[in-house]
């Protein structure tokens, strides 16, 4: 039986007054799309750990891939706040669905847009924007996660091409992707980005099984065994870790908005449930202990909304720093995970079932607090910013 999605947005501080008509229209459109396309199927795909591949096309049609990139390069020509509210509504549905869009827009289209040659942009961006091509982003390696600078994937010069060897791990979309933006070192140890196509000999992308989190998003490896990559596939515009890190800034920004959606869905579910569920002859929401939880949740959500709106304003002015983005990712993901845990308890036994979305959000958020820089790593980025001392090493 198709689920009725009774989700209602919460806006305690009238934040909507800070949003423009485009933002509100974009948010409502994606919310309607999620109610129509995601809610009715997500629990089933999640339970079977299957990626709803048909949604790649739907995400393209609604305009969720690279909404803040220019229209001529397959984007939506919108601003960063529009990008944020779109991610928020997608993640309100499911973090895995949001991940499908984040990777395509921020980690595949963005580096090609920012660092690609005109030929690369023309060849790939419109097709990525329309969902005709699906992409993935390969940075993390089996032995280098939080410390990607140590990566061992490397390539050697061979005339018009380079020969690539190495492996990437935990790569969202990789088993279904047509192209990969992969990062590897040249003979001098300098990191470069390159576009790999799935049928290049020596290139494979096996799926990783057994994930208990982000189950509706497909994750895999990238294996490079003497892959011959034409030099014209190397991104000419960037050298060194600045390349992948700038992409991560884009994606982390989207996550900071996205998880507010997951938190809102958990809060809304707990609020509705606790007003309807009667124990000791009164709605559960009438007990002080439960009200404390609800009050705490909506306060934290409201703080995150204000915080993230300010970050969006800075991003629109091209002034958002990596440390500011880290702080928003750090705060908001943690906030969402705490709300998921607290709201789940408010549903008692029902809270552990897939009748309600909270447990799924909670499990998803365990990935979200790990990828794109773990919670610890963001702590250290903020720490380095305020002390000037690098605590990574």
């Amino acid at each position, binding site marked *: 039986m198709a689920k009725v999605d009774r989700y209602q947005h919460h806006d305690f501080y009238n934040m909507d007054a800070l949003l423009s008509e485009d933002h509100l*229209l974009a948010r409502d*459109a994606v919310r309607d799309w999620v109610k129509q396309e995601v809610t009715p199927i997500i629990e089933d795909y999640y339970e079977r750990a299957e990626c709803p591949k048909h949604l790649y096309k739907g995400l393209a049609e609604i*305009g969720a891939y690279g909404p803040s990139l220019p229209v001529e390069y397959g984007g939506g020509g919108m601003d960063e706040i*529009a990008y944020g509210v779109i991610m928020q509504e997608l993640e309100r549905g499911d973090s895995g669905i949001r991940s499908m869009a984040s990777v395509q827009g921020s980690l595949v289209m963005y580096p090609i847009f920012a660092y690609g040659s005109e030929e690369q942009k023309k060849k790939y961006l419109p097709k990525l924007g329309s969902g005709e091509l699906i992409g993935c982003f390969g940075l993390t390696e089996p032995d280098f996660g939080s410390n990607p600078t140590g990566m061992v994937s490397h390539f050697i010069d061979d005339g018009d091409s380079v020969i690539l060897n190495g492996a990437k791990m935990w790569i969202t979309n990789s088993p279904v992707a047509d192209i990969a933006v992969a990062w590897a070192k040249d003979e001098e140890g300098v990191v470069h980005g390159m576009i790999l196509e799935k049928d290049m000999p020596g290139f494979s992308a096996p799926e990783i099984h057994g994930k208990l989190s982000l189950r509706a998003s497909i994750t895999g490896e990238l294996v490079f065994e003497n892959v011959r990559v034409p030099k014209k596939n190397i991104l000419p515009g960037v050298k060194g870790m600045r390349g992948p890190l700038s992409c991560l800034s884009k994606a982390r920004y989207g996550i900071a908005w996205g998880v507010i959606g997951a938190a809102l869905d958990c809060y809304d579910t707990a609020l509705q449930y606790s007003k309807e569920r009667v124990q000791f002859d009164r709605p559960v929401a009438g007990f002080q202990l439960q009200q404390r939880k609800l009050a705490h949740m909506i306060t934290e959500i409201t703080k995150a909304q204000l915080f993230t709106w300010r970050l969006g304003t800075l991003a629109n002015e091209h002034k958002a720093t990596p440390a500011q983005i880290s702080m928003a990712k750090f705060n908001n993901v943690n906030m969402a995970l705490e709300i998921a845990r607290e709201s789940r308890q408010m549903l008692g036994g029902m809270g552990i079932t897939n009748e309600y979305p909270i447990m799924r959000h909670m499990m998803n958020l365990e990935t979200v607090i790990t990828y794109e820089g773990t919670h610890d790593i963001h702590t250290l980025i903020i720490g380095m910013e305020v002390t000037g001392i690098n605590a990574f090493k």
Partner: protein
Amino acid sequence: MNILVCISKTPETTAPIDFTPDGKELKTEGMNYILNPYDEWYALVRALELKEQNGGAVHVIHVGPAANDIIIRKALAIGADEAYRVDCDPKDAWMVASEVGAFAKEHAYDIIFTGKETLDYAGALVPGMIAELLGVPFISFANHLEYENGKIICQREIEGGYEEVEAPMPLVVSAAKGLAEQRIPNMRGIMMAKRKPLNVIEPQCVSPKQTLTGYEKPPQRTGVKLIDPENMDELVRLLHEEAKVI
């Protein structure tokens, strides 16, 4: 084929409804409004489909203040070509119909669509009044509409079945569920809507024909009483003494 779609706003369907203590006004503080679903999902989308099949243009008209521009932008984002807003705050259906009628008289529309009703007051009066003002046929509550040989053929749901009616153009049609399927605007549409014309026109300012005297809420529903299926006597007693239905 040139089509005019009349669009209105309505409180979000989940908005709590409350009135001022004297019962004279609806409390609108913090209330969110949406484009009336009958206008958006059925009237506008069927109009766009007809344009896609037969060419022409789809215009939307809204009678209301600038604060409602967002619902007009939404209609443009879904695909309408051009919008008109009559700048006044109408007090009854007659005021709305008079403005739309006066506007439509000056333009040659083949079909004027409205929703079956606006969800808030559910008056369903505007389309009939517009048709009368223009002296054209009116088909109400259409669930299905086809354009054939210069005529419009509609199906209407009636008690226990359907009736089929046809009328020549120009005409007014009010759209009911089933006439089309909701189209969610995409980001490109939202951005394009910013560049489409939203023309503001001065109102005729006719006087309303009705005055609102007050609102009253229905009595609160009381809880359900469960009676053991073995205890028929108690059920009969309650139906007789408390519910007073037997």
